[in-house]
């Protein structure tokens, strides 16, 4: 089988992998790199539980061919905390009960990060829009919106 070499930086770490070209980014980060924070909830680009940030954009990694990651910079939930400190978005999700079972949470937080990276002061509508591609079956979303709003405020406060 034909193997391809790809190089990328993930959570600040350089990686070089030889992979068959049909594999998805989600498979590679979960199976080869053992970064299991991103989840597979559908494998069809519907649920957002596999969301990671690649090249500054949030992507459903289950739909992205791993080949496309070549030369890119990627951030996953594992790369969010700073040393031992939680990222303000993670902190806000604890504080505001933005999570129940936690399966949607890594993807949700990456979408939130992407939103706040581009919009430091989102309105409720913008928050809803920002996570509209991420399903959550447990929380009813409101607490997620509150968590993201609180994170935006705390990040603006110089955190």
């Amino acid at each position, binding site marked *: 089988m034909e193997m391809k070499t790809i190089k990328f930086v993930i959570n600040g770490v350089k990686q070089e992998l030889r992979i068959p070209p049909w594999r998805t980014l989600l498979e590679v980060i*979960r199976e080869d790199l*053992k*970064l*299991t*924070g*991103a*989840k*597979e*909830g*559908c*494998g*069809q680009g*519907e*649920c957002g*539980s596999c969301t990671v940030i690649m090249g500054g954009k949030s992507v459903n990694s289950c739909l992205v061919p791993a080949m496309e990651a070549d030369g890119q910079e990627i951030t*996953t*939930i*594992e790369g969010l*905390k700073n040393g031992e400190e*939680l990222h303000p978005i*993670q902190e806000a*999700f*604890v504080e505001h*009960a933005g*999570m*129940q*079972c*936690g*399966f*949607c*949470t*890594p993807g949700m*937080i990456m979408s939130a990060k992407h939103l706040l990276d581009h919009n430091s002061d989102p309105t409720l509508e913008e*928050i*809803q*829009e920002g*996570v*509209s591609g*991420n*399903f*959550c*079956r*447990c*929380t*009813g*979303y*409101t*607490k*997620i*919106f509150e968590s993201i709003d609180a994170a935006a405020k705390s990040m603006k406060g110089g955190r």
Partner: protein
Amino acid sequence: MKSNNGMIGKSIPRIGAIERLLGKPLFSADMELDHPLVLKVLPSDRHHARILDIDTAEAARVEGVVEIFTAEDIPRNHLTGIINKDRPLLAKNKVRSKGDAVALVAALNIHAAETAAKKIHVVYEDLPSVHDPEEALKNHASKVHEKGNLLFTRKIKKGNPEKAFEACAVVVEKTYRTSFLEHTYLEPDAGAGYLDPDGNLVIIASTQNPHYDHSELVSLLGVAPEKVRIVQAATGGGFGSKLDLNVQGFIGLALYHLKRPVMCTFTREETYRMTAKRHPLKMVFKTGADENGHLMAMTAKMICDTGAYGSYGLAVASRAPVHATGPYEIDHVDVECRCVYTNNPFAGAMRGFGVPQAAFAHESQMDLLAEALGMDPLEIRRVNALKAGHKTATGQLLNGSVGIDQCLEAVKPHYENALKTWLHGETDFAKQRGVGLGAMWYGIGNTGVQNPSTAHIEMDGEGRITLYTGCADIGQGSTTVLSQIAAAVLGISPDMLCMVVGDTAFTSNAGATSASRQTYISGNAVKNAAEKLADVLLTEGVDLLKRPKTDLMLENGFVVYKKDPDHRMPFSKIAARAAKRGIPLRWQGYFDPETVPLDPETGEGVPYATYAFACHVALVTVDVLTGEVTVHKIIAAHDVGRAIHPASVEGQIRGGAAMGVGFALMEEYDPSTTRSLKDYHIPTAMDMPEIIPIIIESSEPTGPFGAKGVGEPALIPTAPAVINGITNAVSARIYHLPANLERVLEASIQSGKFTMKEVA
């Protein structure tokens, strides 16, 4: 033990929250095993057929395939099921639905497993199939199971409704229908297994009931109980479907034969095809009231489609009729519910066990009666609401916490305000506003059968305390709540407790995480265990502190003399002394709610020891031209007895209401077309109304610190409130859920709203 050191009613940080936020590998599919084999199930592609042959030869030659299993390979009992054992792990002789598992491939990688599954040749001989429960009950109908298609009938009879109807000022009779639903927990079913150094089978799985899984594995494999260990992994929601054996049996079977690590992870499509659905119900309700709106009599004929297998069908078919009166006192009742096999996908437990379906009917009836009598919908509910001292349709005297009145009272200002102002707010003329009410009651725990929970608590020689519970936390937060209960009794902070949860090697049976029973039942078991330990600590303290027991209390890891808190003794000293004297520091707790089995002919009995109550108000807008419904706001009042962890209670209410919006407006699993999330719609961030939870605490004397439960009640009143809101908006009623675009548009056309616009 009265005092609770401030631990009860406090939203302490949820256990396991940080790990989840960091994306730590906690879920079954995240497990890292040494070169695990992967498993793939071959499902049946027939509705109903005899299996003449399964030829695995070609599949076995696929590179990377290690083994292919069929029913022949199951060592002992091939049937599974928690209430009635009718579902084969792998089909034997025949298949009864398109999701039936026929063969299981174990391979080195997923591609090999998938390729091989396609190369298994099954020779079927099709049998006539039946897809409608009423058809299935006819004489000529094809038999899904040998014993016939009627699985179970539950009857509830009280008084003489036919006679009572004659005296009614108004009688309403209508037929209601609901659809198959998919739980759509975000985590598809998954599990992993390996052999421990002693050769025991260890299975880590996404589950709502590890101790049940354990008993099934022992039965399937015919091995000694101590040879199997089930560990509940972090579980990404369940909502009832992870009460069945979804992947655990396959993992056990492969592990038993191959003795190598294995993993089984369902894709979303597999989850949709091979796990339980919500039972669709057809319900004919007849309800009568006097001129003041007092309910005099009701009858209901219900039929529920359990598909190919029973699963929790009996529970659904018992709960739906028991709750058919709604939270109201009615003297004359005759309800019958039949649970029927068909060749549809099997239906099982889903949040509410048939009560959401029943509530749709009884709450629609309430509004119809109110309309016929010219009464306010809230008023007719208040007139009839159950109170302490009332008797239910099963003859149960309610003498504990009955908070429906308080729920109705709590929503009243919101409801009246919405009617007065919001309803008349300015909108586009095509958008009609409506306000609707939905109320419910929900019995906590299983229906008229024993459903005990056990727990253990242990103090080591250094005074450290560990709580062992078999109670599966599936995201709702039971581990945190149980830690609060134990901590409150023992006078410590919950983070001083070590929690061992859902691991059959260490924990004892806590029963299923279902029926909203864990706070009440396992909470009581934990409290019972903790009280026994507390009593030992206090008794030992008498000797050491030389003070009477009644003057001692537990605080922050010390036995303390109440009148002089400096006079105290740390748990560690007491533990050391107790150990020396041979006094046990490991105690078991047990609780089983007091119920009386229901009479098979009349339903008389005590199905539950206590009930939760709730009422929702929904504010909706209907676009009469498109049929689109927007839910703006839900006010959700819930009597939970006591909220031990208020943030989790609120979380349940919000999540339940969201699921209720899905049930009301969009969710429908069509067995012939629904394959994945692409064709099944659940509420997204854009569909969410504002939700205002109101927690009512009508303390339950038998509950731990007064608590009852909320997990399922949260969802139940939402759909009726939304449907009544739609009716209020367009003056036409929807009798078939979900109220999707076509049905709402149809209602809008029927009521003349649609043409009104055209004229305008």
